[in-house]
Structure formats: C-alpha cells, structure tokens
C-alpha cells in the first residue's frame, strides 16, 4: 500500500514539475519576443520596468488560464499594436521586411555565379 502511494505521489510530482518547467519555458519565450514599450531597445525579459513587470504577470496568468502563445500575442497586439512583438506577423505592409534579406542573398548569389562563370570563361579562352 505504501509503495503504491509512493509511486502515485512520485508520478504526480514529476508531472507537476514537468508542466511547471514547460510553462516557464513558454513564459520566457514570450517575454523575449515582447518589446518593453517604455525602455530603450529592451525586451520584456530583459527589463525591470513597471510595464515589463506587469506584462510578465499578465502573460503568466494567461498561460495558467491555458491560453496559447498565439492567443497571448493576439491579445497584446490588440491592445498595443504590432509594435509590441519583435517578430511581426506577415502582412502586406511588411512583406519586404520578410523577403528582402532572402532576395538579397539570392540576387547576390546570382551575381557571384555570373562573375565566377565569366572569369572561368576568360581563363579558358
């Protein structure tokens, strides 16, 4: 009987600590992606400002309520706009922000390829 209770409590405790660790991980992930609106270039995770502290409490509560990362971001962007998240959603206003780096890499690659090919042809000739 004692053994049974021991195992039961051990499993229960392990599950709880696992869920605690998961929540903590999610909390930190969200804090890092939230901009501290009253700080100079700091995320909520890095800041100790009143605003950041309050936001941390709210995020913690939302996670406890079972809200997903997306739901939490949606709630906050509804209140503070897209500016609050470091990683903005893809939309028609910021598509260049998402595509320009890739476009630059592809374009740069093509230029390098053509130049190398040209140099190779010159050497062969």
């Amino acid at each position, binding site marked *: 009987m004692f053994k049974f209770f021991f195992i039961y409590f051990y499993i229960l405790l392990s599950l709880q600590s696992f869920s605690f660790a998961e929540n903590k991980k999610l909390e930190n992930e969200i804090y890092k992606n939230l901009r501290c609106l009253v700080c100079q270039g700091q995320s909520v995770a890095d800041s100790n400002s009143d605003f950041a502290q309050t936001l941390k409490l709210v995020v913690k509560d939302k996670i406890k309520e079972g809200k997903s990362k997306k739901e939490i971001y949606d709630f906050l962007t509804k*209140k503070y706009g897209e500016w609050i998240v470091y990683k903005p959603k893809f939309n028609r206003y910021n598509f260049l922000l998402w595509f*320009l780096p890739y476009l630059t890499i592809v374009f740069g690659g093509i230029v390098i390829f053509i130049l190398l090919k040209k140099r190779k042809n010159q050497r062969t000739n």
Partner: protein
Amino acid sequence: MKINLLRILVFVFAVFTLSIFLLSLNKVKVYDTQNLVGKNISSFELKSLDNEATINEESLKKNKYTLINFWASWCFPCRAEHKYLIKIKKNSKNLKILGINFKDKEKDAKKFLKEFQNPYYFLAKDYDGKTSINFGIYGIPESILIDENLMIIKKFIGPINNEDFNVIMKLTE
C-alpha cells in the same frame, strides 16, 4: 553587353534597397496606442480603494461620458494634471471621472487626494497593474474618455493639460 546588364541590375537593386532604408529611417514614428480609439473597452472588475464596493464596465454605461484616469501618488506628472481633473469635475455636467490607482500604497493615495482634492466619483485600485494592460496602458498618467456605449472617444497619454481640458469639454458638452 552581359556585364553591362549585370551592372545595371546591381545598381537598380542597390538603389531600391537604399531607398527602402532611407524611407523607413526618415519616417517619424512615435509610438502610442491611439489605435484603440473607436474600439470598446474590455470588461474589467476593480475594487474600491475606500470600501468593499466594486466597479465594472456595465456600471460605466450609466454615465453619459466617463474619463478613466490611471494615476499614482508616486507619479510626479499626475500632480501636474490633478488641477485639470478638478477643473473638469467642476465644469462638466455630462462627465464623471473614474480614478484607477495604479501600483500604489493605499495610505499614500489617500494622503495625495486629501492634499490635492478628490476629482473621482469612484476610486478603484489596481495594485498589481494587471487591469491596466486590459486598457492598453503603458505608463501613467494616462486617461481614456469613453461614452455610454463604452466606446473609446479619445486617449490622453501623459498628463492632461489645459488644451486637453478644452478638448474634453468640447467632446462632452
């Protein structure tokens, strides 16, 4: 011919990229939460600072206009705006001011109001500040003017001044 076309392409791409950077850098963007104007306030429930009474968004529907003012005794700009809140209370017939005491000590808040007078018809406390996030507050003082349908008519970020007083009087006359 090939190399010229390549040079032109590189040049066009560089100009295009630089123009985007220039346009973005020259764009003055001061952050605020004015995007909430025209939207309804979220539901909330707060306890009174004076007794066990509570207030929620439903009770605000009874007022023609409500100015929700977030303040604290430790906030210096709140002292500067307080005289205008008193002025609003004295001059406006259709507007009531709801005070939300933000992350403050009860004793200090009461001392502040004793010293500067109380412009609020209801004084609520938000000691952990969580309700302020529901209102899109990111610093105090901030005030939100709403109508009887709970729609945000105007947001005042920072202390209310004489110009804001005139705007409030005009909007609520």
